[in-house]
């Protein structure tokens, strides 16, 4: 952190958090797939209670 000059620091502070957005998209897709698996794979295929 100490090695950064003010311009570099400013550039980092003002840059878009691309890593965060990518992570959230990955988690979002995983959540959606997980929900679909639970609904279509487990709930709808469960059948009547015996």
């Amino acid at each position: 952190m100490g090695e950064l000059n003010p311009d570099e620091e400013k550039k980092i502070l003002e840059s878009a958090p691309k890593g965060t957005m990518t992570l959230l998209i990955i988690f979002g897709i995983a959540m959606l797939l997980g929900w679909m698996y639970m609904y279509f794979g487990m709930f709808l295929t469960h059948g009547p209670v015996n």
Partner: protein
Amino acid sequence: MATTTASMQENLSSARGQNSVNIGLANFWVALVFMTVAVILGVYQVAERSGFFPALESPTLYFASVSTHGVLMGFVLTTFFIMGFGYYAATTSLKMPIPGKGFAWFGFWLALIGTLIAAVPLLTGNASVLYTMYPPLAAHPAFYIGATMLVVGSWFWCIEMIWMMAKWKKAHPGEAVPLVHFGNTANAIMWLWTTIGVGSEALFQLIPWSLGILETIDVGLARTLFSWTLHAIVYFWLFPAYITLYTIMPKVIGGKLFSDEMGRIAFIMLLVFSVPIGFHHLYMDPFQEAGWKFVHMFGTFMVALPTLFTGFTVIASMEIAGRLRGGKGLFGWIGALPWKEPVMSAAGLSMLLLTFGGFGGMINASYSLNTMVHNTQWVTGHFHLIFGGTTVIMYFAAAYHMLPRMIGRKLHSASMAVTQLWLWFIGMLVLTLPWHAIGLLGQPRRISSAPYDDPLVEQWNIHEASMIVGGVILFISSCMLLWNLYKTHSASPEEQAMEYAEPIHPAPRVPHLLNSFAFWNVVIAIYLIASYGYPIAQFFLNQTFGATTWGV
């Protein structure tokens, strides 16, 4: 001149939070000691229900233990921790003393005495109502009276938070209230709204009923009133965790908060959306129509938004810090973060647990999918991940950060703290992931034993064994926490100021709606009337099956 010097000294003292040290410490230690008792009971419970230790089997003892564990974790640890956190954060962020300190101490003692009164029937098996307020399960009146005193004691804290915000705003006209106190005040206001439901149930139904003043009780009305409180209480617990993530974590890791305004919006959304959504706890109840349940389901999904905002802002703040520390590439900043800092480790682990727990929450909230997991061990797994995982791990982080600053000492061992946090994370996953699986295999929640010779039940054995391991890991972790904090009291002196994260773009002034709660209280009132008005009124309007108001 003398007045100015005295005023400056008072401000300096407030910056260190000295005015709130005693009440902060008292609240923290009450919370932590009761939490340890609850963890010990938790280990007993997983061992008892596993069926592997016949000598331990006792439904009476089990349900007394479950009830005590739930009350200590869900009501006592949380309430006292939140009060201690709030007082210390308020004095150090606003740089002003607690007004009416005797008032604050009265609230503390009322809550503590209430807890001790409730503990007597809990420990003697006279309040084995599974830490809920769901009649026809009936507890000894002392349980309801003690629990009510605990809640009323917490209202003193709520009033203090609102009082401090009003006083600060008067002294700083037009300025933005520091985010940390804005969050604490949002939580205090939300808690006041939240406890109207359970407070009405206790005051007008449960206490008179348990004392024999009322002969019968309207179960549907009681469950509806409890649902008013039941989900928002989770956000009451979560607020300090989110506040720590927004205002302490970015500072500790050498970065800045990505957006102060985003934090304010998230806190306001939590405040507005968390109370009028409680019917997702009543999806299977016949007392309410499906249409009302759908309205509450919609609100339940809306409350995911502030969590999404929080996830984005907190992770973006981590990314900034990681890049400032030399991290490159799309994910290189993750490795550059100071993972040996307890607050950083806790934040990362907490966010991961929130992801797992949040997924389970989506399933619970989905009206149809809920039928698959309703009243199964899945639900227990879900709320342990959100509360015992996401929330409590951030309480640990806040305690590791605040307690040394309160007493002017160095944390006994940062490495032990990080190990403890990882153990808690691992223990919580080992405990709760099998609960999700076993719930899908059909194990009901709230059972003390099962017929283990049944072929269906045989499938549960591996999961039962796993949860014992998880419980023991959590017990070891909580002992490490207590030891570390206890030893900190005799560690080497070190004066550290309590500082909060600066946003990338500091905003000395923010829009009025992001700096005040007056308008949002009106919105909550309208939303509550819309979502709970008729569902409650119907019990008075439709006297079905001869039932009369309040069960009289």
